[in-house]
């Protein structure tokens, strides 16, 4: 039997081998970095209508009065995302999906249907899975929001991510984060779901690549592992 222990005895200075950038550790770190990069306080205020830069909301408001009279002035909303408070400058009609991508750089929630049908943009708000494409950002103030980045960065959910990868519950991968978020929301409220309960909970997520049977396998495996790990 050949293995590292009995092979080439006496060789001590083995070269560290470069591994794929896509492991759980690396992607978890990337997710944490994406969350960490969100500034808690806004210091720059670009005019959404003409892209001019201001350094206070007061100056931007004044600019609106002078240059864009009659237009709705954007406002600062404080969001609590993935355990972190942050200010965002949004217009009243902005959806949370749009804010996540274009203000916070969180791109795990995906745009597929853009009208609350496909589940690709799912996030968790106050413990419930919610479609961020049909949720206004201004409605989210004071609520706790978890995105797939927050799940990826949290070691507690490693078994779920591992199981998704082990069962290959993805093909093109575009809708996958939405499924993972729905799965996490399910496991939060039901740590031991049956296959039927999983189907029910994930029936709002649409995959066109034929992965449906794999999600239940992955989620049930993750549930067992998380239960065993306490």
């Amino acid at each position, binding site marked *: 039997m050949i293995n590292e222990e009995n092979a080439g005895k006496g060789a001590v200075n083995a070269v560290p081998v470069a591994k794929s950038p896509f492991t759980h550790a690396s992607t978890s770190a990337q997710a944490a970095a994406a969350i960490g990069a969100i500034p808690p306080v806004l210091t720059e205020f670009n005019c959404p209508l003409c892209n001019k830069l201001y350094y206070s909301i007061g100056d931007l408001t004044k600019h609106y009065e002078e240059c864009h009279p009659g237009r709705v002035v954007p406002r600062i909303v404080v969001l609590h995302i993935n355990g972190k408070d942050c200010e965002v400058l949004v217009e009243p009609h902005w959806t949370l999906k749009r804010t996540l991508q274009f203000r916070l750089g969180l791109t795990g929630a995906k745009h597929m249907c853009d*009208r609350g049908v496909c589940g690709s943009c799912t996030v968790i708000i106050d413990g419930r899975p919610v479609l961020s494409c049909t949720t206004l950002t201004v409605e989210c103030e004071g609520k706790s929001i978890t995105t797939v980045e927050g799940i990826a960065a949290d070691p507690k959910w490693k078994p779920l*991510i591992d199981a998704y990868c082990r069962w290959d519950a*993805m*093909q*093109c991968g575009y*809708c996958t984060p939405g499924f993972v978020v729905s799965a996490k929301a399910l496991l939060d409220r039901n740590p031991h779901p049956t296959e039927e309960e999983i189907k*029910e909970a994930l029936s709002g997520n649409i995959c066109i690549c034929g992965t449906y049977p794999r999600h239940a396998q992955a989620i049930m495996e993750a549930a067992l592992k998380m239960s065993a790990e306490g």
Partner: protein
Amino acid sequence: MADLAGVNGQREEFRVVGKPNLPGVLSYAMATGMAKFGLDHVLPGMLHAKFLRSPYAHARIISVDTSKARALDGVVDILTWEDEDIKNLVSYGEHWGPVRAWLDNTADQEGAEVGVIVVAESEDICEEALRLLDVKWEVLPHVVNIMEGRKEDAFVIRPYDRHTPTFGRPDPNAPPQPPKKGNVAYSNVCWGDIEEGFKQADYIAEVKMYIPAFASHFPNPPGSVAWWTKDPYKGDAEILHIEGAVRERIPISKMYNVPLENVVQESLFMGGKYCDWGLRRAQEITPLLAKRTGRPVRCVNTREETFDFAMKQRFVHLRVGFTKEGLITAIDDHSVVDGGVYGSSSFGTVGDQKHGPYNSVKCKNIRQCWEIVDSNRGMMYVSGQHSPFNWDCITVVNQLIAEKLGKDVIEVARLNLHGPTAKDDPNPVPSFERCVEAGKKLMNWQWHPARTKRLPDGRWHGMSFRYQICPRHSVSGYMCKLEYRDGAVVLPTQGPVFGAYMVEAVAMVVAEEVGINYEDLKILYDYREPFSPVGGGSDGSTASAWAMKECANILKREILKAAIEYADSMPNFAFMPLQSNPPPEPGPFKGLKPEDLDIKDSMIYVKADPSKAVHISRATPKPLVATYMGRPPLSSWLTGGGHVFDCMNTLYCEVAVDEETGEVEILRFGAVVDPGKILRRTSLESQVDQAMFFSQGCQLFEDYVFDERTGVRLNANMIDYKKPTMKDVPLVERDFIESRNGNAAYGATGISHSMANTHLVITAIYNAIGVWVDPPATPDKVLKALGKA
């Protein structure tokens, strides 16, 4: 047949290939949301762009006044079809239809991009500006009902286009096609003597089949983000960054006359494609807009703007003659098929006639008369769910014969399927026989005639069968490169990363051949790398894996040689790099020859004494490169013109039909598939499931609905156009046969397109209730067919 040409094509022991539950190298990126798709890019100062979309199915812009839109706060640029910058644009994407102006003032479908592009600070402003355009339209008559459009007195929507669609090299022996008449072009293919065939028949059956249009519906809406920079290492050369038009650097490079090396594309994740390779205008326009504005520009279609056809609507009138034993003597297929809007691909029309289902039957008297009708229904890009669907003419024919004669449909299919080499070959097809044997067992197959079996709950039970060849298209060659560097085996590839995980299957073959553990292989994604696993559909994973298998063996030899060379060089080897790790201690290979060594489980070892071994990371500090260019032998699907069978697949369906409510439940699908050799099992299983869920969707739920009066599509959104959800899809039971008969890696072939079908469920419904229902078989249609509505 079989991988006789390649290294280790007959390998029997596999450590990595075919192994289940092996996470892909990219799995973690996808599951965590870290996979970056082109449209995820957000840049400082980024602008947005939107096209004017036609509210009419067929219309011309007479004039447009842009002054109010230009005055709107936040509007940065507006272009019309009359601008030189637009007139000069030429698309080099894969369209495979007649060349058309990149953008003009004519809209040939509702929702088509036409006439004007607005660039603004946000998408909202773009939309507001589009509403402020003062557009004078000339509304023209349209054709969205092709049965009306084919009539002689129908309005001719494209009098300027008199060409007959072709596909590939024309057959020099074929008689010329009739000239196009009105909206109708003709593609007629005749073999044998159709009249004589009908004379030989004991029975003649007829059926009218309807094949609905089907949305390709890839998950990620098409679009792009582009910006220009200057690279201090490239002098004054401008660098074009374009994300979202994945795998399209070459056409974008040509379109904007930028050297390929200066076109940068970092995000290789491209989402689902389902072989829809058409480059959309939103993917092509952003470099121009970014150049004009000096800022990054993003242009992305909405979901409603992304409802292109993957399958064209087709009406088929089938007549089939057969003997009292069930042997087909003549097939007459008269089809009326949607030709789509101007510029549509011929892939889904005449392309399908070449390798169609009729090649598979013994019968030599076959006539296909196809009317291809110009329409204003929609654009057909180079899209992949086409030809396999046409095999369902044979599915339906076999069912007709089985019901007429009271014979098992599988026996009818077997009787009519010709041998593995040609129409005159009387031998059974081994792969078909193995699939059927396993399929009967899987499904506990007990065929019954139509409307003869009720389930305990009173619903009618129906069952159906379908077969097809597993195709490999053989159209691509591969430029392979593998490296050994920093102690790791590296597979550099430009990707792309979509759907079927093609690179992962290739990586498994590399790990297998070099002898390393899968996790010790590093896949390096870089748009500049020459290797791409893409080919004609199923070529991607199987044929590119074959080429990479050759390359892996070259690299393995180099590694073994280098390991000995390194051992031999000690202790004279005095190199001590200044800024990197110290070199590894060499393995105990001094004085040996490469043939004395082997690699297994990432350990290089002496064959005569396996305890003398080192991890591959310690082979040598010397970087090594292996290259290979080539492809496996052409596939039987291509060389045999569809008459040579190596790997087949068979599908089964059981339904329950409630004749009171009209509801159809698919009790289960069965799929017994011979992919030759399983490379990546989970991908294969998902490909099978995907094809079956596509089949369910297009036979029970999906169809485009047009308002014929206005030509407007009424359900181009994900609410009204229903895709199956997790709660909708039935059980898919699978079994795989590994005949090793394909001629890609280890005898593998592709399966991806070949199981998608339009009539497996429909024939099962027929078997249940004894009447045909057009797909999608919604309850109202079922009740109507039963005379209850």
